[in-house]
């Protein structure tokens, strides 16, 4: 943890690069009649790590999943408002959700490897996305990025299902990275992992922002503080406060934020 902190301290204060990766405008999501997300407007800057925090059921996953249209297949989910990505509303009429999901990848709370070999898991995305180079190279690159190569390189042909939870999750991260997404959405990626695996994944997230934008949902405020540049606090479907992580944790402007981060509810 200490070298991660050091690295962060050494990094020059990050002036906003100016570009926004994804932006929501008055985004509301309904499950049936229930409004799970209420008019949320939030801009995710490119190549930064943004954390969503908030008590259980406040809409973190809902917000995250609406950023790559993952809720399309949830039967009674309905979306209002806009989500701008690359200058267009991803819920617009001519938008291909499949293409959106290829460019905005996702890692889930519970590792969900396919019942296939490690290699086939990682190569799964590139195989259909018109990748023309050598698959073995992509797989190696993605596994290296996910800090799993050295550990797994000798058993690429083994089933991914037989790995430990932390290894599985890193294979899933490698699988998501192999299609070279521009944004990676992570829904509590370390919540089922031991401290060592968690630390590996946090370091990995930190390294990832060199090349892509990361949005991470977490229940763990220390984790949010460690890995993210900005933090958004959601409460009962509303975006209560959003700002630089350090600011939000040291000088929250909203009483509800303060109550949550000091552990008075949630």
């Amino acid at each position: 943890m200490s070298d991660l902190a050091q690295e962060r301290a050494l990094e020059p204060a990050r002036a906003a690069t100016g570009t926004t990766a994804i932006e929501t405008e008055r985004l509301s999501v309904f499950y049936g009649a229930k409004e799970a997300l209420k008019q949320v407007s939030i801009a995710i800057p490119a190549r930064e790590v943004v954390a969503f925090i908030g008590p259980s059921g406040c809409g973190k996953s809902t917000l995250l999943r609406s950023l790559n249209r993952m809720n399309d297949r949830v039967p009674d989910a309905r979306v209002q408002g806009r989500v701008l990505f690359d200058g267009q509303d991803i819920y617009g009429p001519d938008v291909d959700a499949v293409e959106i999901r290829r460019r905005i990848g996702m890692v889930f709370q519970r590792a969900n490897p396919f019942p296939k070999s490690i290699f086939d898991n990682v190569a799964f995305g590139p195989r259909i996305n018109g990748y023309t180079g050598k698959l073995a190279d992509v797989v190696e690159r993605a596994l290296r990025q996910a800090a799993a190569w050295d550990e797994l390189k000798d058993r690429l042909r083994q089933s991914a299902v037989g790995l430990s939870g932390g290894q599985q999750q890193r294979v899933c991260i490698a699988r998501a990275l192999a299609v070279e997404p521009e944004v990676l959405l992570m829904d509590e990626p370390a919540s089922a992992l031991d401290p060592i695996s968690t630390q590996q994944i946090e370091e990995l997230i930190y390294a990832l922002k060199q090349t892509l934008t990361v949005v991470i949902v977490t229940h763990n405020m220390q984790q949010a503080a460690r890995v993210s540049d900005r933090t958004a606090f959601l409460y009962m479907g509303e975006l209560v406060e959003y700002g630089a992580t350090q600011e939000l944790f040291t000088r929250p402007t909203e009483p509800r934020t303060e109550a949550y981060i000091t552990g008075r509810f949630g």
Partner: protein
Amino acid sequence: MKATRLQLRRKLTGRIMGALAYLAAAAAVLPLLLVFGYLLLKGASSVNLDFFLHMPRPVGVPGGGMANAIIGTLMLVGVASLLGVPIGIGAGMYLAEHGNAPLATSVRFLADVLNGLPSIVIGIFAWQLLVRPVGHFSAAAGGIALGLMMIPTVTRTTEEMVLTVPTALREAALALGYARWRTALRIVLPTALGGVITGVLIAVARVAGETAPLLFTSLGNQFWSVSLTQPISAIPLQVFNYAISAYDELHAQAWAGAVVLIALVLVISLGARAVVGRGFARGND
């Protein structure tokens, strides 16, 4: 003192319930064993190489067999599978993936109705549609009748098996830029394959023994034929014809036919299972 009495009573109840469960299990398996045993007793002695290689011979001429009926059953089941397996798997996947669409509800209902139709009704239907317009009986008509009977079984088992595939796996593929149909083909179906194949095998086993739908479709044939447009023999038809004949010799052949029919179903099941098993070990890619 009280506690030990209670414990004793629990133990005793447990024993009795356990014994009852064993008894029920035995009662369920017993008829099957009896049928197998009786079949083997009556039929095994008449099953020999001639039975597989030779054509039926007139009563009194030794060494007759059912070569034509064996090939006939294989062909009928083949045609039936060509029709029933793709439609059944497709419909089952549709039901599982779009379970609450209004169309799905009707499809599910119709599949159940079709499943409940007496097989003779399916036979009449196939006769009306495929035999009468053409003017003669055919193997194709029989195969199609059997295929129709396979559809509901394959549909419902496929649906059930596909529903057991975790949502997390579907979402993983979708999040990689897989379209829904591609996710269904590349992840959902392979993951459920073992169960789907089992459903197909149950359907195959069921129709391989059907007689009624063949009576006025493929009709039966005393001669060698592998033509889809001609009448064709089938083991159950032959067994039926021999069984109602007056000759002990033919009765023996009927028993032998029944043994071969069951063995055939068994071999198909084991063969397909072996293939699927190996596919899984490789990670089905």
